[in-house]
């Protein structure tokens, strides 16, 4: 999550009058890691998300993997879930969509830490 992924050339960024070609699929021009890198996080030492890996192993839906807007939950080859609390928007989606009772314990990070949306 934290490693930098090279940006694919944003072809349109310098042209104000860039033409739109209908019916042509536009590639997501920027890698997700670069997008989330625009947001400021003052990471706390203590994780505010705790995932019970044993419970996750029995989960067939993996809704957190799809729904977390920060893409913090990643399935592993051996049927577990890897997660990262560092770039968390603190939205609460993961514990609400979680089907497995008690798999995700979620609280707010320590005061002063976590996501910091910017003033203009």
């Amino acid at each position, binding site marked *: 999550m934290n490693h930098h992924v090279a940006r694919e050339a*944003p072809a*349109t*960024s*310098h*042209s*104000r009058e*860039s033409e*739109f070609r*209908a*019916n042509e*699929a*536009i590639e*997501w021009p*920027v890698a*997700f890691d*670069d*997008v*989330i890198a*625009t*947001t400021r996080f*003052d990471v706390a030492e203590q994780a505010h998300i705790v995932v019970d890996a044993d419970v996750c192993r029995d989960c067939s*839906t993996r*809704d957190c993997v*799809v*729904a977390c*807007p*920060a*893409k913090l939950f990643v399935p592993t080859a051996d049927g577990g879930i890897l997660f990262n609390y560092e770039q968390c*928007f*603190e*939205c*609460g*989606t993961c514990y*609400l*969509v979680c089907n497995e009772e008690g798999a995700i314990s979620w*609280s*707010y*990070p*320590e*005061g*002063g830490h*976590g*996501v*910091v*949306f*910017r*003033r*203009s």
Partner: protein
Amino acid sequence: MAERDYDVVVVGAGPAGSCAATVLARAGRRVLLLERGPFAGSKNMYGGVVYPRVLDGLHPGWWESAPVQRWVTRRSTMLLTADQALTVDFRCASWGRPPYNGATALRPDFDHWLAALAEADGAELVCSTTATGLLRDPDGTVVGVRTDRPDGDVRAGVVIACDGVNSFLAKEAGLFEHNDADHYTLGVKETLGLPKDVIDERFNVRDRAGVDIEIVGGTGAVNGGAFVYTNLDTVAVGVVLKLPALAAQQRRPEEIIATLKAHPAIAPLVEGGEVKEYSAHLIPEAGMAMMPKLAGDGLLVAGDAAAMCLAAGIWLEGVNFAMASGMAAAEAADEALAAGDTSRTGLAGYARRLSGNFVLRDHRKLRRAPELVLSDRVQHVYPQLVANTVEAMFRVDNPRPKPGLRRIVTAERKRLGIRRRDLVRDAITGWKTFG
């Protein structure tokens, strides 16, 4: 009664909390305003439009100092299908002059400003401090909060929980009867940098005038909504997604935004914009269907913590509801402290005030709206019906003569498999809800 540190502790320096703290400070109460972020507004995001007229009484002339990006003078409602768009575009020049109507603003700016006004009135703002739980008497009455500071217990006569959509305090107090993912939507937004003159040209506005585009049908198979708002030199583009649908459809939020940005009607507005910030937040979408009990013994709940956000399709508001509920909670707390009864009965003035003003009246009137707006037919079928009808009206496929509107609608309705009685029933529900 045990000794207390403050008359009232307000948890969360968002719009509800800061308005509550202002009212209490002006009433001469000792009030502590707790904020878990490093500054007020640092944890907060929304689509981008605030309706501040509710501040006319509390902060007269608020527009002189409010950190506004642009004043919304153009409001568009857009129906999208995969390759069609129908827009109803309304412009109103007077919305660009005092007392204004809606404004685009960044929440870290707006909330910081509002909290500073509370401080100026005498509220004590303490940031970087998370309220971790409620302090209770043996009989269960709330008498303060625990915080994550050393020796961080704070005792108060009344606690006002303005701790946002996840409100752990309201949940701890048992004020929520259920906690159903179906009641929430996830808002995800990209803030895209573009030069001001490019935004002015693309959106056809000048100076500080701005545009609010609300979109139905822009979220693919996931039920929800989408938006594009103009800030001064950024454009906010985002989606609001129903949680269970998002999980069920196996589509990631950033993919849905990418598809929206590539739509022929949206791409020319946002092309070339560099992502300045990516953000997400939950929205308590279900209105009356999810609203908790508003008071416990020693405790009031306001703003998103009490699901006051109004998500009623053509009206999408929240900050104004939060500010009004915060003010009402503060008045009720002041009244209860004066009467020496801060039990839930003593705090009943809160619900009475909300029932008397727009907060609960709008929610009650629009109680059917969230379900209707997020229903499958309104989300996926009717936009196609309307767009196909308009396309058939304006398509000139001579030598065929023009078909009548009624024939077009009937043909499209049948083609999309819409039963007439469903259409009639939804029309009646829509009329009852919005009429």
